[in-house]
């Protein structure tokens, strides 16, 4: 998936998983013997029973919130709204059968994301940074196949134009849907209030927007599905750089 290659082996009552990026090793066939794999692969191992053979791969969101920045900032007029498509590189959850139950073995990101900080220098939380993947229109060729497309509808409730430069998105309440070989999340709508301290209301739709509204749910939201939430300082560029 994307730049990520994954080898999964069931051997000596163990599940073994190894990953490498494109270009690290010569091209390998999609199916083959253990002997075909490079000897220098590093494996992670999990104990299982003799008869365990089932395996399931599920897409998931990265383990940290993300901060998405459009290529250039956009001004949203008072009372206006703007729809954005944000592509978030999926992670792969590997579930293997262990004693008749499927157990999550590991989660691997398809792409290495750079980290950033949301908050001031004394308090905040680490996030992943997406620099150029907030777009106004969905053109399939713009998005790699391993991206999960999140649609964000911003609505400016304030009386002043709103400069959209960055967006903090907590991914815990997004589910993942599949449609024609692509991954989508349920859509969300964010109300931009006048006072940033109040926070920004976020409404989660039950599924993706048209034209992929009939997509099938593949993975449930990690922290469960909710209808409304509040994002504290979703758009704040809070760090003052004092050198």
């Amino acid at each position: 998936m994307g730049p990520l290659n994954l080898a999964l082996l069931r051997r000596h009552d163990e599940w073994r998983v190894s990953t490498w990026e494109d270009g690290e090793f010569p091209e390998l066939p999609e199916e083959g013997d253990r002997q075909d794999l490079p000897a220098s692969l590093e494996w992670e191992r999990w104990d299982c029973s003799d008869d365990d053979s089932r395996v399931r791969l599920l897409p998931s969101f990265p383990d940290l919130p993300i901060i998405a920045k459009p290529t250039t900032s956009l001004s949203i007029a008072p009372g206006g709204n703007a729809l954005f498509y944000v592509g978030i590189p999926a992670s792969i959850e590997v579930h293997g059968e262990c004693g008749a139950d499927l157990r999550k073995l590991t989660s691997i990101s398809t792409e290495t994301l750079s980290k950033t900080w949301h908050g001031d220098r004394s308090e905040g939380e680490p996030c992943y940074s997406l620099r150029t993947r907030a777009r106004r229109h969905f053109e399939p060729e713009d998005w790699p196949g391993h991206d999960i497309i999140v649609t964000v509808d911003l609505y400016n409730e304030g009386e002043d134009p709103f400069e959209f430069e960055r967006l903090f998105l907590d991914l815990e309440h997004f589910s993942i849907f599949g449609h024609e070989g692509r991954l989508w999340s349920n859509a969300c709508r964010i109300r931009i209030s006048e006072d940033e301290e109040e926070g920004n209301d976020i409404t989660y739709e039950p599924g993706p927007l048209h034209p992929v509204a009939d997509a099938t749910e593949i993975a449930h939201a990690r922290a469960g599905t909710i209808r409304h939430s509040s994002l504290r300082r979703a758009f704040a560029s809070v760090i003052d750089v004092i050198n």
Partner: protein
Amino acid sequence: MTTPILAALPAWFSNFLESETLWKAVGAAAILLGGVITITILNRVALRIFGPRLGSQGVMVLKKLIRYLGFAFACILALNQIGLNLGAILGAAGVAGIAIGFAAQTSLSNIISGFFLIGERPFELGDIIEVDGISGTVDTIGLLSLTLRTFDNRSVRIPNETLVKTNVTNVTRHPIRRFNLDVGVAYDENIGHVLSVLRDVSEKNLQCLDEPESLIIFTGFGDSSLNFRLGAWCLQEDYGVLRNTLPRELKERFDEEGIEIPFPHMTLAAGKALAPIPVRMVADADKSQPG
């Protein structure tokens, strides 16, 4: 009921049981036992009430304070129960206290400094601090001193008084931290190009945070180099990795770009400024000399 039973016992034993001393001793023991139970209960109640506000250091000191004062009070009550003249003991203790006070000025100073530290809370158990050039993790916090576990696993005891008097740097108080990397390049290099390479290296490093943005500045003209500072922000837990990876990545990138990191050098001039240094061929000099 008791008289027939006592009558059946040997005379010395029944005399012992009827003696006042025994019951005084039993009373004193009961007071001590009650004291231990009361101290335990008091400790728990105090920790529940004050614990969240005091922090780990305060909690440790509060526990010790309640224990020592409680035991002292229980002992006084027990001695009183036995019938000792407490006035004389306390009087003697007062005189001894003055003498001990003079002798134990440092200890008292440490204890009082400990109270200041509880109020101020400059660090907690598990924080990494730097005191007088010694860095390590705060291992234990006591009434008199703090124990620091250094990174090479030595245990250093630092008196509380020292902590109040000297500069204490808490390295892990804030969740993010900046790593400053100073680097010099040859005078031939283009400053703008070097700045853009520094920016690119920090952006590509996996531990370096995008925000706060890295500090990248030209710091001045050195003796042998143009000097720059790259200040890269990272999460506390990534600091060690960043410190290892960033200089290596920067050196590799400088090598790729052909940017020279100069070593300190000195230009020698003889007499008039920048006039060449006269060189005499040694072999010719040897030939010209007779013999």
